[in-house]
């Protein structure tokens, strides 16, 4: 079941169309990656989901029905541009923000104490925000985003500003939230993290959804029958000169991708009709195969291909 859907959402600003009939489906309890180059309209879409701005047309469905004003208490939003009150004490500030999200004072303090202890930051409680480092401020901001245990969490570039150790910790925290049943929308430019944690994605380019679906399906869909073969470099000559290529294999081709420490990595492209076993048999007669794997396109490649592809067709 989809926890959140947008249906043909359109948003027009005075000088440009920010969103053009954008429809996304975010399944319940999954991590949904909202991808797209800068200025594609991601932030506008997130603001519409958050009810910060209203769409010109189209609908936002929240938990199976049209989104209502009180739904914002079920949403936790971590914007890309972080910000808290610099002069306000950390604890006081966190309680204030939690109260704005509908928690009572006592409940807010109880939950915050729990989270502050979990992150080992209780000593910061009475410090002013400006006394903390940027990474510390990010932690506070993360806690204030999830403190009201919203059903839907929206993280816009959550890892920016974190060192690798804390980024890993944050990732685990996000996966835990998913395991606890929260639905998460995750917007980022870091494609590696998309592969790691996202279940589904939507790629927005130039105000439109150009690609969407399950991450594994999308990557399979973008497969190009390319295989990666590792051999000793001095054996490559057997491949090029003496290999018997069956006549029906006319589309077989390979190229040397890189050579390192006497081992070469070859990209082999073959037709679908040829099975992997047939290929391996003919290769194995000539050379010593170190490794053979199918090349699955990275989200990074897919992103770049899709975005630059759709840009050139339009241009």
């Amino acid at each position, binding site marked *: 079941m989809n926890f959140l859907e947008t249906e043909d959402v359109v948003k027009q600003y*005075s000088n440009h169309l920010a969103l053009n009939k954008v429809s996304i489906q975010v399944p319940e309890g999954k991590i949904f990656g909202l991808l797209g180059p800068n200025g594609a309209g991601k932030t506008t879409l997130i*603001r519409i989901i*958050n*009810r*910060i*701005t*209203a769409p*010109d047309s189209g609908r936002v469905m929240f938990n199976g029905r049209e989104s209502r*004003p009180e739904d*914002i*208490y079920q*949403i936790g*939003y971590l*914007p890309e*541009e*972080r*910000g*808290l*009150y*610099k002069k*306000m004490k950390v604890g006081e500030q966190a309680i*204030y*923000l939690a*109260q*704005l*999200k509908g928690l009572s004072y006592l409940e807010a303090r109880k939950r915050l104490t729990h989270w502050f202890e979990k992150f080992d930051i209780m000593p910061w409680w009475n410090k002013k925000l400006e006394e903390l480092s940027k990474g510390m401020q990010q932690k506070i*901001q993360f806690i*204030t*985003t999830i403190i009201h245990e919203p059903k839907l969490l929206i993280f816009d570039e959550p890892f920016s500003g974190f060192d690798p150790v804390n980024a890993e910790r944050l990732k685990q925290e996000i996966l835990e939230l998913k395991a606890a049943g929260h639905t998460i929308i995750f917007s980022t430019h870091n494609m590696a993290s998309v592969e790691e944690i996202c279940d589904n994605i939507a790629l927005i380019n130039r105000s439109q959804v150009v690609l969407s679906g399950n991450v594994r399906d999308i990557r399979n869909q973008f497969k190009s029958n390319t295989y990666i073969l590792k051999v000793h470099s001095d054996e490559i000559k057997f491949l090029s000169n003496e290999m018997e290529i069956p006549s029906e294999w006319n589309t077989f081709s390979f190229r040397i991708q890189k050579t390192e420490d006497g081992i070469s990595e070859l990209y082999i492209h073959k037709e679908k009709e040829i099975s992997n076993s047939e290929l391996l048999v003919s290769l194995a007669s000539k050379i010593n195969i170190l490794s053979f794997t199918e090349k699955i396109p990275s989200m990074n490649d897919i992103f770049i291909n899709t975005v630059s592809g759709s840009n050139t067709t339009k241009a």
Partner: protein
Amino acid sequence: MNKIGLIVKREYLRRVSKKSFILITFLAPLLFAALVFVPLWLSGIKGDEVKKVAIIDTTGKYAPLFKNTDEYIFINSNGNLEQYRTAKDKEVFAFLNITGDLLENPNAATLYSEKQIPIGLKKEIDNVLSKYLKDEKLSSFNIPNLNKIIEESKINFDIKTIKWDAEGNEKSTSAEVASILGMMLTFIIYMFIMMYGAMVMQGVMEEKTNRIIEVIISSVKPFDLMMGKIIGIGFVGLTQVFLWGILTTVLVSGTLFFMGGSTTPEDLMNTQMAAQNLGNISMTAQAPEMNTKVLEIINSINFTQIGICFILYFIGGYTLYAALFAAIGSALEQQEDTQQFMMPILVLMIFSLYAGIYSMNNPDGPLAVWCSFIPFTSPIVMMVRLPYDIPIWEILISVSLLFATALLIVWGSAKIYRVGILMYGKKPSIKEMLKWIKYK
């Protein structure tokens, strides 16, 4: 609604607990009291050094006239001026040299000194000589009892002003008291709208440049955030006015008590009221019958009505201008950019202040009446007119107009605010800002 409450509470508590607020709230009345009393007190202090003034009078007529005062000792001298001029050690501070009959030749008297002659000494000598010369001149006319005639013809006229109320009852009024009271109220309202309006703008810009705005408006409506801020800061302003009122009263009456020495409870109440409402100290220092007159005049002023109106106009005027300031603050990121947008508001405010000052001379004239109806000027100009007992219907119309306009401005500003707080980058023009009102 309880979200607005939370925001109001935060804005209020944060600002009231600031050191600068506490400092200004408690120091300003001290400063105000000091401004009134220090000059008074200083003028009471005489220099402890007694200076010698030597009189070289060739006529011998004038020298005996001078009596020693607390500050100056006059000594008759037969010495030579030249001799004194060249003397090394000068015990004598100044020399009065009189060389002839002053009635015939007014230039015959000169005061010499090595130092700057204090104004007090010059006055003292002028007084003594002119009084003597006047008497001498008068007696030269040979009219009997002339002195007495002149004394009796000195008339100090102060017209008694009476105002009829609706039933035709007489009320003693005082144009002076009313105008001083009106002016004070005008300045207070002007100052507070400027101070606290600017504070609203600062607060809005702070949230925008801090980028906390996006987090907050994902929890509360922009309108609630804006109103919460305006109301919270408005309460800070009211708190400050209230504390200043109390502190100033306590300080002024306390000081008067110490300075006045003998005071009966009735006097004290009288001085308290006078001080609180006028800061007019001279009145209390005058004769008892003067006191009762002041009391009567003060009683003739309807303080309840003025108080209620002051609060109403304060709320209306502050809300109207604070909403404008909030709209401006939402559209800008840089402190430097604010000047251009504040200009029109400043012009309006300063115009109101001047209209108020000119209205003082004619509180029922067309300028005063019109400006006390126009919502942008009425909070300031009406303050001048209030102590003059203006008809209730005028106040009702003016207040209704003010509140209706304030609501309209709040509505428009909220629209601008909602769009503005999320706009980063280019500084918008006023035309663009007005366009935002129409955004969905």
